């Protein structure tokens, strides 16, 4: 069967490459590819890669990288086990389902297929790592197998974590009981890391600046060193300097890989479920395939209680409000604020614990700054995460375009959906952040803090609308770069598209801020002559007003683009 899988994957890979090469005739894909290649080139050392360096025997891996790598891998593992990070590990495409789920294959064979399929990107990534590790320590020819064993083991672990999740979901208590051994191992593993961190809290409190050095040392001592040992084992071949050292490290890493494979296969086999359950799932899968969705090997679409709309929708009035209502509902039904709130609270609590001995005042200030920091983080990353706007709705372009709503109103309603969600999240962080900062008493002018917070609350919707508008503009002009439509870039092209998207957004956002800044500064300068520092008030107000003016302008421009968009030519419709 493996031979057949390899044939299927090979044909699929060949066709993908042919299609990607063919579409390079389109400038947007060619430019994306060039950007992607340039990104990889510079990200992994750039021109230095091709220069001459010290003799190979004298080369060393950066000490920081060696110390941090197992920790980063540990974070990834925790994400797979606790978060939604492993959910894509066992997803199948509709074509896979059509061809494989109807074939006489066992669950084990389907998992084998999934693992084999992952080998193409793993090999590609390993080749890239090999290329860019040329100037690193160790014989050049060891990097490819070393990277391969590392990425394959991590992939197996991700699949294993997903299988455990699924078992627990499907079989409830019985599922947890059946998987008590891996779960106990994971709990013990996290506890070991937690214990080691707890042990270094006193020196950490004394010198927070050395947090990474202190944590690095903690992870070389038991029990963390034992917990991280499997990760160090799979990393060790990459770090080996001598051939003999590499051989033994590689053999050990292979053993970890094989152990993971056996674990995944055994976990998969333990999932052989009743015929009735399988039939239900098959029906759900067939339905999902018909609607063109990606589907998972395991059912996770158990009906759940739906959250009611935040506001009722009357049957008469401005039609665009219906679009806003729908998009807000999309956000409330698909996202939970529990995890971000929990992470923020945990981070704030961590700050309080670390700084309590310095006095409660500093602890409160740090906790407040953590909240404000997360609010700032949303300002930067939010436009990519809050997608309940055109980026989500363009998939339904055939329906949207038949609605009697003009382009500008449609864009305004769409942007209002993501802007309101993003702003609400920021304000929810801003309020406790400001309160904690004020309670700390460390700010000499509380009135300034309050004024700044009020100005932020006024300006945030406009800031966010501009940032989200840029993302929506990219989605309208080049839907594929926003991962919309059937003709999406992949691999290096996708990386290039993402880079262009990111840099383009930053550039456009910066340009958008210039006119309001100039206007605000001129008014401030004039007002300061008369009112001193209070001149900042009219300056800030004009700055904010100019931001809203830009939002209006942007909505009209994007509305025009929306009206003129040809869904077929842009790849949104076939």
């Amino acid at each position, binding site marked *: 069967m493996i031979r057949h899988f390899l044939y299927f994957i090979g044909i699929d890979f060949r066709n993908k490459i042919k299609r990607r090469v063919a579409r390079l005739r389109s400038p947007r894909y060619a430019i994306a590819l060039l950007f992607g290649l340039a990104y990889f080139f510079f990200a992994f050392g750039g021109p230095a890669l091709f220069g001459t360096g010290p003799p190979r025997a004298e080369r060393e891996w950066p000490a920081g990288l060696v110390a941090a790598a197992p920790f980063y891998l540990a974070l990834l593992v925790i994400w797979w086990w606790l978060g939604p990070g492993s959910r894509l590990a066992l997803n199948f495409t509709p074509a896979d389902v059509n061809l494989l789920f109807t074939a006489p294959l066992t669950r084990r064979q389907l998992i084998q297929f999934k693992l084999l399929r992952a080998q193409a990107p793993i090999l590609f990534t390993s080749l890239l790592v090999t290329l860019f590790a040329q100037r690193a320590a160790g014989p050049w020819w060891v990097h490819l197998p070393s990277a391969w064993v590392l990425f394959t083991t991590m992939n197996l672990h991700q699949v294993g974590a997903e299988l455990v999740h699924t078992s627990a979901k499907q079989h409830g208590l019985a599922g947890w009981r059946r998987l008590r051994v891996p779960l106990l191992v994971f709990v013990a593993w996290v506890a070991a890391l937690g214990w080691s961190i707890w042990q270094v809290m006193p020196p950490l409190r004394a010198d927070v600046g050395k947090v990474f050095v202190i944590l690095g040392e903690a992870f070389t001592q038991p029990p963390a060193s034992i917990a991280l040992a499997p990760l160090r084992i799979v990393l060790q071949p990459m770090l080996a300097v001598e051939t003999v050292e590499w051989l033994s490290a590689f053999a050990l890493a292979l053993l970890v890989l094989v152990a993971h494979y056996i674990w995944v296969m055994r976990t998969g086999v333990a999932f052989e479920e009743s015929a009735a359950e399988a039939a239900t799932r098959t029906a759900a899968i067939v339905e999902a395939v018909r*609607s063109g969705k990606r589907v998972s090997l395991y059912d996770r679409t158990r009906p759940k209680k739906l959250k009611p709309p935040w506001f009722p929708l009357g049957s008469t*009035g401005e039609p665009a409000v219906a679009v806003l209502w*729908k998009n807000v509902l999309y956000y409330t039904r698909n996202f939970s604020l529990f995890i971000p709130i929990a992470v923020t609270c945990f981070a704030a609590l961590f700050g309080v614990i670390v700084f309590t001995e310095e006095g409660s005042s500093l602890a409160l200030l740090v906790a407040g700054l953590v909240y404000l920091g997360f609010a700032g983080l949303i300002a930067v990353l939010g436009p990519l995460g809050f997608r309940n706007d055109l980026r989500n709705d363009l998939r339904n372009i055939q329906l949207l375009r*038949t609605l*009697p709503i003009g382009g500008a109103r449609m864009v305004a309603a769409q942007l209002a959906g993501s802007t309101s969600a993003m702003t609400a999240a920021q304000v929810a962080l801003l309020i406790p952040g400001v309160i904690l900062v004020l309670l700390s008493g460390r700010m000499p002018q509380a009135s300034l803090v309050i004024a700044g917070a009020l100005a932020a609350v006024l300006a945030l919707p406009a800031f966010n609308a501009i940032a989200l508008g840029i993302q929506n503009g990219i989605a309208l002009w080049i839907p594929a770069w926003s991962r919309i439509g059937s003709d999406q870039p992949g691999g290096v092209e996708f990386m290039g598209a993402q880079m262009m998207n990111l840099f383009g957004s930053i550039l456009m956002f910066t340009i958008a801020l210039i006119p309001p800044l100039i206007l605000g500064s001129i008014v401030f300068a004039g007002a300061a002559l008369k009112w001193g520092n209070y001149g900042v008030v009219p300056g800030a107000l004009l700055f904010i007003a100019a931001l809203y003016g830009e939002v209006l302008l942007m909505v009209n421009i994007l509305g025009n683009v929306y009206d003129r968009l040809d869904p077929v030519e842009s790849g949104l419709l076939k």
Partner: protein
Amino acid sequence: MIEVSNLTKYYGDFAAVTELSFSVQGGEVLGMLGPNGAGKTTTLRSLVGIIRPTRGSIHIAGHDLLNDPVSAKRALAFVPDEPQLFEHLTVLEHMLFMARIHSVSDAKSQIDALLEDVELSDKRNVLPAELSRGMKQKLAIACGLIHDPRALLLDEPLTGLDPGAIKRTKLTIRRQAERGAAVILSSHLLSLVEELCTRLLVIHKGKLVAAGSMEEIAASRPELAGRGLEDIFLALTT
């Protein structure tokens, strides 16, 4: 009610539809026929404002679709071959959404009646993911009828429907026409077209090859006299 003049759509050098002109009056059901790739979907998409034609004009209920799309779209409804639904809205919420879009004043009674009509009353609080293909199609049809459109365009409306639903959908189409709506029905089901349509429009390779009632088309081709729609269709498109 629907006036199409010199409709032309190019994709690069490829002409998907060329110089297509026709009209559909209120009360008429026009059957749009053509083999796969003939340009039916492109024509329908142009008529409902999904794509902009390269040339030509389209008027819906007297409104120019290209210059006044909002007014024109208020008068029409489109039911595509693949139902377009929002994954996170329930059946009832879809109806509420469409009611607001078209500012339907007596929405509640309309929604209840339509859901009853398409047998989705007991599914009003479920998401599309929990509906069968046929139920989704029924919901798409109900959404299209919420504002009592003056122009109704349907692309393969019976796909996935059970016999009972097929019968009711046919009745609905007929009823809409009787109430004065102009209906365009695109389908490969020749028996359906023969049963419901008052006139036919046959497209082949993006061009109009025949228009009129079956009798008129047969009269224009003496060799087809007395033949059924299937023979006429094959003679015109092969």
